[in-house]
């Protein structure tokens, strides 16, 4: 017979493994965002992944005021029932977009070839500052920490 402390230790390891599995599953289930438009000359429209120990955590975006960035949302297939919220639309606005594109879904055991209309969004830098954009879909959610930077000063002539 094992001592009670050993049982407790084993139980702790099991719960730890379950917690890791849940975190990994939750992380893996969240959609990914892909930039679909370039920045204009001398302006910024950059999106980077924020990765942690468990992989992709969120995104950070730097965009110049007055610049728009198109992105798509996917998790093996285009995001379904996508909802978009900006914490401060005065700093960065987010809008649904229509790319009129079909994107291939990843093959599963039920579907081999499948296509769906791309789920797209446009982020618009309005005024310098920081805010968060929240993308929610059936596939999960993602946050984008947005920093809107001022446009470079243009010479009067």
């Amino acid at each position: 017979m094992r001592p009670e402390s050993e049982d407790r230790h084993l139980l702790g390891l099991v719960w730890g493994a379950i917690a890791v599995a849940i975190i990994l599953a939750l992380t893996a289930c969240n959609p990914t965002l892909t930039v679909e438009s370039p920045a204009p000359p001398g302006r910024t429209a950059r999106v980077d992944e924020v990765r942690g120990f468990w992989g992709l955590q969120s995104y950070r975006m730097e965009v110049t005021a007055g610049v728009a960035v198109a992105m798509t949302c996917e998790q093996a297939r285009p995001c379904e029932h996508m909802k978009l919220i900006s914490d401060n639309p005065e700093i960065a606005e987010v809008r649904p977009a229509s790319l009129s594109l079909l994107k291939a879904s990843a093959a599963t055991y039920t579907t081999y070839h499948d296509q769906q209309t791309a789920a797209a969004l446009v982020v618009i830098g309005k005024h310098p500052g920081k805010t968060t954009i929240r993308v929610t879909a059936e596939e999960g959610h993602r946050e984008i920490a947005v920093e809107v930077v001022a446009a470079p000063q243009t010479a009067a002539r």
Partner: protein
Amino acid sequence: MHQATLMGQCAADDAACSRRHPVAPIAIGARFHPEVEAEIAGTTVPNLRLESAAPDILAVDGDALVAKQAGASAVLISTDDGSVVDFIHVWAAPITRISLARRDGDRLSGAVGLAIGEDLTIAPALWNGAQKLTGDADLAWTSSNPNAIEILRDGSTDRRRLRARAPGKTTLTVAFGDEKTTLDVEVVP
């Protein structure tokens, strides 16, 4: 996104039309009247409207884009329910030079001779350095000798028609803010 873009409203045979250049910066103080051209897969074009990301740089005023100050702004092309079909970044720049051309695009400089009764249609172009600007600016047209030539409107916002009236010399001045250009005109019998 490549579904829609903005084109200038110009007649096909109007070589001098400055509104022909939708990819050029809009001159500050000028109005650009765009036409939205769209090709969306699987559908005719829905009703589309324009919005500016930075109205302090580029404002949407009715059917026109109005350049307010130097810089760039995304112009969103959206459906009535706000779904963005496309966007284009449009630049605004100050005018540093005005040039004059005949309607067929031939540049005018120095002096021009006209016979009495002869007409000359002049189209101005706005520049920032070597960059041609687009948009309709409210230019001021004046003649130092109004007896020699008459300055007539021809229905276009930017062009003018000169009609030689009486023998003599005059200097035509076309100005916008601090920028101006001149053309010497001699009317002969």
